[in-house]
């Protein structure tokens, strides 16, 4: 097959395969079983198609690849402009990687309104991929908002006890915050006449945007608020534990695995890409918030009696690392930030899947309801330990590489950032291993737990890829970093210039 001819369309293909699948799902299969198989096939298809991207990516080339740029609407000047670089390519693959696993993990836990569930899941996948591939700000906003509804519905329709509260809270937090981003986008459009990311970036760099100096700080904040809520950065994180605890397993996996990365990706791409000067000026308080998030998230995790809430707060802590790395403006810090995004997506996705498997058996997430589970469920315990260790940052597993890079970048920026950030690793070892001990080790505390069935084949099929990738990312990070590095380098160019200007003065 001539793969070169595929290049301009491959991104659209990857993005819209799930959506097309969801439309077919609306009409074709009727039985629940067929619906699940169909959803699995579609999501695997999207995954296979997305593998084309990292395979054929020119790793050392700067700028965007696989670009497609067509006029969509003339007034306003909106283009269907998509493209990826060494950073977003992996976020796309992360999304397509996690979705089939979500389908597998929801196989038996969703009984009602099965069709709607998988339709929403696939629409969500399209929207998520679209966020990472859009290069037109309008298109980006379009996909950004499009993630909102399927996710809110997944939480609200299939979640647990306080699902409605959690869904509405999630919706309102993100919706209100993204309004500020919309205002900033419209402002940029009204001054430059374009929504194109590259055009706007060039216009800003050449200083041809009227009134930019006065508005830049507000624009920076407009984008920042929208992304900070998504990340979520302390103190805007309060929606996250609620959403996670109430969401169905697949919802939690995609929420932690991909949705949160929309925020960190946005910070990297737009806040750093469009407003380098403001990013530098505001870095001190953003880094402070990130450090507070790292430590606060970890401390709150320590005292959680609920397993899912514990994992949710650990996300606040881990995503703090990403923000810390991003706003260190160093090569190592940014490399690490991107790597942590991917590693966290895999590991935390895995943790939520494991928690979901337990919930299916016992219908509770309370840690005190378990104890000594390693005896009835040895395989489950082994997988759990593996993923916990990956998340903690054990060398040779994926968590370690990213956190190490972030911390070395933070040390370069300012030693105190590195020192405080490093405590986060200690905390995370604490809360995760302690949780592991309470759930799995010792004697079986409750009689109901004695007869719990171990993993079945389907569950193993969902967990094995997670474990394998966690190991591969830990052993051969170069496979990822070789494309992340050049992209980060070109993202840092304006910062090097800024620094040179400061020194020159």
């Amino acid at each position, binding site marked *: 097959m001539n793969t070169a001819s595929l290049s301009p369309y491959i991104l659209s293909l990857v993005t819209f395969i799930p959506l097309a699948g969801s439309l077919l799902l609306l009409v074709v299969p009727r039985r629940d079983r067929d619906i699940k198989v169909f959803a699995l096939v579609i999501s695997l298809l999207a995954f296979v198609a997305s593998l084309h991207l990292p395979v054929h990516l020119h790793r050392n080339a700067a700028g965007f690849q696989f670009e497609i740029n067509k006029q969509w*609407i*003339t*007034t*306003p000047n909106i283009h269907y402009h998509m493209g990826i670089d060494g950073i977003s390519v992996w976020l796309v693959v992360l999304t397509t990687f996690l979705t089939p696993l979500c389908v597998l993990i929801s196989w038996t836990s969703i009984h009602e*309104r099965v069709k709607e569930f998988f339709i929403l899941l696939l629409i969500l996948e399209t929207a998520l991929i679209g966020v990472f591939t859009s290069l037109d700000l309008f298109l980006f*906003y*379009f996909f950004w*908002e*499009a993630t*909102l*509804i399927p996710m809110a*519905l997944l939480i*609200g*329709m299939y979640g647990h006890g306080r*699902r*409605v509260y959690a*869904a*509405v809270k999630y*919706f*309102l937090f993100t*919706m*209100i915050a993204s*309004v*500020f981003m*919309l*205002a900033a986008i*419209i*402002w940029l*459009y*009204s001054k430059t006449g374009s929504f194109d990311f590259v055009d706007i970036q060039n216009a800003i760099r050449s200083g041809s945007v009227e009134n930019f100096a006065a508005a830049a700080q507000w624009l920076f904040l407009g984008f920042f608020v929208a992304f900070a809520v998504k990340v979520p950065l302390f103190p805007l994180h309060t929606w996250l534990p609620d959403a996670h605890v109430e969401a169905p397993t697949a919802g939690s996996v995609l929420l932690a695995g991909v949705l949160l990365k929309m925020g960190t990706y946005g910070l990297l791409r737009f806040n750093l890409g469009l407003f380098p000067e403001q990013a530098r000026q505001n870095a001190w308080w953003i880094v402070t918030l990130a450090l507070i998030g790292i430590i606060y998230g970890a401390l709150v995790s320590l005292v959680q009696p609920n397993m899912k809430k514990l994992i949710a707060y650990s996300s606040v802590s881990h995503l703090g690392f990403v923000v810390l790395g991003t706003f260190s403006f160093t090569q190592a810090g940014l490399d690490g930030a991107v790597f942590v995004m991917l590693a966290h997506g895999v590991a935390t996705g895995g943790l939520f899947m494991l928690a979901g498997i337990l919930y299916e058996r016992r219908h509770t997430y309370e840690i005190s309801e378990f104890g000594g589970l390693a005896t009835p469920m040895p395989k489950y315990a082994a997988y759990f330990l593996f993923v916990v260790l990956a998340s903690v940052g054990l060398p040779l597993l994926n968590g370690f590489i990213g956190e190490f890079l972030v911390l070395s970048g933070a040390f370069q920026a300012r030693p105190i950032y590195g020192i405080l950030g490093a405590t986060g690793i200690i905390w995370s070892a604490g809360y995760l291993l302690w949780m592991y001990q309470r759930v799995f080790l010792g004697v079986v505390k409750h009689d109901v737990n004695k007869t719990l069935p171990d993993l079945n084949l389907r569950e193993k099929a969902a967990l094995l890829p997670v474990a394998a990738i966690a190991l591969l990312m830990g052993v051969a990070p170069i496979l990822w970093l070789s494309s992340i590095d050049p992209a980060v380098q070109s993202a840092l160019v304006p910062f090097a210039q800024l620094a040179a200007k400061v020194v020159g003065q």
Partner: protein
Amino acid sequence: MIIATTALTHSLPALLAQAQSFTPPSGSEYMRILPELVLTVFGMIVMIADPLLDETRSHKSLGAIGLIGALAALASTYVMAQYPGTGFWNMMRVDGFSVFFHVLVIAIAAVVILSSYEYMAVQRIRAGEYYGLILFGTVGMCLMSSAIELVLIFIALEISSIATYILAGFRRREAASSESSLKYFLLGSFATAFFLYGVAMMFGATGSTNIDAIGHALASGSVTPLAYVAVALMFVGLGFKVASAPFHVWTPDVYEGAPAPIVGLMSTGPKAAAFAVLLRVLFEINAPGRFWLIWVSAALSMTLGNVGALVQDNIKRLLAYSSIAHAGYVLVAFAAQPELGTSAVMFYTAAYAAMNVGAFAVVSHFANAGEKYLTLEDYAGLGRRSPMLAAALTFFLMSLIGIPITGGFFGKFYIFSAALKANLVGLTVIGLINSAVGAYYYLRVIVMMYMREPRADVPVTPVPFATGLAIATCVLLTLYLGVLPGRVVDFASQSTRDLLVATRLGP
């Protein structure tokens, strides 16, 4: 005195003078009011056919006549568009602008007739004049958009208003409906009186009631305080019609009592026509002192509408407050520069019409006999019991929130980008915060439909064909405006030039 006599050539007394040397309108002038003629003829047919029908038989055939009339009128707008220019002694003008609003209000009327078709049978309302009144009301709305003579605007306003006053009271057995009708009538008459007073003042200030002439008089001479008063008074009258704050108090009560499809009409048709008039009055004559008037009214409407809607438990009242808020969004565009503002207003009224008529079509079907099921609680579990209807309502509500791929999103987008282009940062921020607040109450309805257990005591009847067609039309139009807004916007900005060129460069 000299100014007065020169200006008089365009004014009403001049018409009287002309009447003595009477020159009958030419054939092409009649073509310029063809849609109005078609609507009137079909309205008459409905009225004449009504008494001939057997008392006991269904009146659905009248609805069919009404629908055919509306569709014929829609087709005749094409003919009308071939004859641009002024007519009837310079009282009305056919240009892109008026064609746009003709198509809009006639389409609204057609969809409303379609959604009333089964509604009337379910509510056991037996009255043929219902369809006739919709058509006559539409005549008034059409004339409002092509009239360039304040007196004709006033007459058109009355034609459309009186029809809607009566329509609001059609649920005769319900006290709320009579209350609605009476309240609308009393307050509405009061408001039109303000408008008429404003017209009189304007005549006093400029010596003319023709919009072109007023525009020239205001542009050339010094602006007297009288002109400011006139603009303010006319704004009060029209502000009432579009339900903008602080002239909005009637809205929730009237919308609650009136038949649901009629609320769909009232909240879009006369509103669109009143916005058209407002565009002419404010922009075409470049009305003095309009900025703060609009600014305050827009900010108030958005805020009071959204805050009011937050606490509503009745879906009709909720949508009533939401329509106040949406009037506020539209007014934001009036504060912007005329070029961008006008096309933003035109697009928004079209998008709002599509989503709101659709939403009320769903509400009117679900309300059932006697409009019993209107509280939010009644919508619990609708997503499971009537998936298509719930999906359609969700889509309309998402459009009202302003989520992408809906017409509502682009509507808001054009308005706020026009406002930012005019550096109206304050108003834009108020608007955006408001649309975020607004998300909450629309979301409440969606949450009810999808995330609550269904209630057995609320009946769900299958959607009849006509209602389904009406809803599907609205969904498709909302989607079309949300995915490919280009054509409509291009047409709107082209018509904007028509509107503005008329005074700036015209004779």
